[in-house]
C-alpha cells in the first residue's frame, strides 16, 4: 500500500516537473523602466514582462533572480543562470562571453545633469568635469572612449546606476551618462535633475544566454518577440513602460498581472498600457 502510494506520488511529481521547464532569468533589478522591484518586492519592468510574455507563449516558466550587473555576463556565460534580461547592449566584448538574441530594443545614451549646474552636453563631457556611469556599461565605455581620445573628462564608475544618480544629486559628480529611458526616468522623478542631451549611439539591446546556446533558448526568445510584435502586445508594453510614471505603472501592473497568469498575453499588455497611461 505504502509503495503504491509512493509510486503515485512520484509519478505525480514527474508529471508536474515534466509539464514546464523552468529557466532562471538574471536581471539587475535596479534599472527602471527596464527592471526594478516595486514597494512589495514584485519584480517588473519592460524586459521582465517581455520575458514573462515569451514564457507564456513558448510554454516554459521563468524564475527571475536579482543580479548584480558586474557579474551578470560572467554568470550567464558559465550557465549559472539560463537567460539574461537586463537592458544589455549587444557588444563584441560581451559576445565573447555570451550569445545574444536578435535585437529587441534600440537605445541611445543620455547625459543627466543637475538643472542648476549651467552645463550642457558638450561642456559636461569635455570641460574637465566628473561624469558618473555604471561599471561595464556602454555609457562608461563611451566616456572611456573620450578619455582615450584625450578629451578633458573624468570617469567615475559605480556598481549600481542609482548610486551614480545619488552622487549627482549630492553634488559629488557633475553628470551621469546612461541609456535614455533610464535617464528620463531619473529626470522625471527628481526635480533637480534634467537631461542635458542625447547622444545617438543606436545601440541594440538583446537577451543573452550562455555561449553556444546549449539549451537552445535563442530561437524560442526570437520567435517569442516576433509573436509579441505580431499580436500587438509588444507595442503595448513599450507604451506602458516608456515615459510613464513609475508608481502608475506599478499600480497598473498589479491590476493586470492576473491576465498573464491566465495565459492572456494580449489582454495583459493592453490593460497595462491603458492603465499606465491614464
Amino acid at each position, binding site marked *: 500500500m505504502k509503495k503504491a502510494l509512493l509510486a503515485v506520488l512520484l509519478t505525480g511529481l514527474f508529471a508536474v516537473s515534466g509539464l514546464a521547464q523552468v529557466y532562471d532569468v538574471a536581471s539587475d*533589478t*535596479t534599472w*527602471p523602466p527596464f527592471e*526594478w*522591484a*516595486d*514597494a*512589495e*518586492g514584485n519584480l517588473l519592468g519592460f524586459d521582465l514582462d517581455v520575458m514573462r510574455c515569451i514564457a507564456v507563449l513558448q510554454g516554459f516558466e521563468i524564475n527571475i*533572480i*536579482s*543580479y*548584480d550587473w558586474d*557579474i551578470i555576463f*560572467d*554568470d550567464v556565460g*558559465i*550557465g*549559472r543562470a539560463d537567460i539574461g534580461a537586463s537592458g544589455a547592449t549587444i557588444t563584441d566584448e560581451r559576445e565573447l562571453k555570451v550569445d545574444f538574441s536578435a535585437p529587441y530594443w534600440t537605445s541611445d545614451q543620455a547625459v543627466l545633469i543637475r538643472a542648476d549646474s549651467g552645463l550642457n552636453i558638450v561642456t559636461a563631457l569635455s570641460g574637465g568635469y566628473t561624469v558618473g556611469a555604471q561599471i561595464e556599461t556602454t555609457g562608461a565605455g563611451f566616456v572611456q572612449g573620450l578619455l582615450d581620445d584625450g578629451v578633458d573628462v573624468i570617469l567615475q564608475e559605480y556598481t*549600481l*546606476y*542609482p548610486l551614480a*544618480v*545619488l552622487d549627482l544629486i549630492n553634488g559629488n559628480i557633475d553628470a551621469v551618462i546612461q541609456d535614455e529611458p533610464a535617464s528620463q*526616468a*531619473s529626470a*522625471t*522623478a*527628481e526635480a533637480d535633475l534634467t537631461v542635458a542631451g542625447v547622444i545617438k549611439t543606436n545601440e541594440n539591446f538583446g537577451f543573452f544566454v550562455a555561449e553556444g546556446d546549449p539549451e537552445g533558448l535563442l530561437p524560442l526568445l526570437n520567435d517569442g518577440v516576433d509573436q509579441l510584435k505580431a499580436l500587438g502586445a509588444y507595442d503595448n508594453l513599450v507604451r506602458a513602460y516608456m515615459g510613464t*510614471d*513609475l*508608481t502608475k505603472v506599478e499600480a497598473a501592473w498589479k491590476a493586470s498581472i492576473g491576465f498573464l497568469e491566465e495565459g492572456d498575453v494580449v489582454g495583459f499588455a493592453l490593460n497595462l498600457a491603458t492603465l499606465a497611461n491614464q
Partner: protein
Amino acid sequence: MSTIWQSLELLVTKGLPTTVLLTLGLLGAGLALGFPIAFLQVYGYRPFRWLCRGYEQLFRGIPALVLILIFHSGLARSFGILLPAFTSALIALGLRSSAYQSQIFRGAIQSVPQGQMMAARALGMSKLQAIRSIILPQALRLSIPPWTNEFSSVLKDTSLASAIGVLELTKQGTLIFTRIQFVKGVNYILVILILVALVYLVLTYMGNAGLALLERRLRIPGFEMKGKVER
C-alpha cells in the same frame, strides 16, 4: 509613512529569512569545523597541529569578501564549479568563521589548567576520557562569552553575500532605496538604510540576549575561573 512600513515589511519578509538562515548556517559550520580543529591544535600529533595552524592562519588572513569572490566567481570561471550564490557565501564565510571559532575554543581549552589533565591521567583516565569529562565541560562554558562576539560579527558579515547577489537584508535594502529614487517627490534613502541597520541591531541584541541566558543557565555555582586556580 505607509511606504516606510511597507519597506520594513519587505525587509523582514524577503531579506531577513535569508540573513537568519545564512547566519545559522555559518555558526553551525564554524562550530562543526572549529571545535575539532581547536582540539587537534591543542592535543593532536605534531603534523595535525601544523595543519590546523596553517588552516586557521590562512582563513583568518584573507578578507571575507575576497574569500566569497574566490568561491563564487573564481572557482566557477577556472574549474566550472557552479555553486549557487548562497552556497558560495556559506562555504566562504563558514570556513572563515571556523578559523575564528577554533581560536575561541583553543583559548577556552588552554585556560583549563594543565594540572587537571595530569590529575585525570594519574587517576587512570585515558586522554579522550579526560577531555570529555574534565576539560570539555569547563572549556565549553568558558567559550560562550567570546562566542557571542563571533556571533555578532558573523551576523553582520552575511551582508557581504549581497556582493554576489544573495538576496538578504542588505541587498533587499538596496533594491528598496534604488526604487525610491525613481519615485516622484520621495527621497528618504537614509530612512531605508536606518531601517536595515535597525533590523541588524535587533537581531544582534536578541542573539546576544539568548546567549547570555544560555551562559547563566549553564553556570555551575562555585565554579569560577578567576586569577589563580583553586587547589
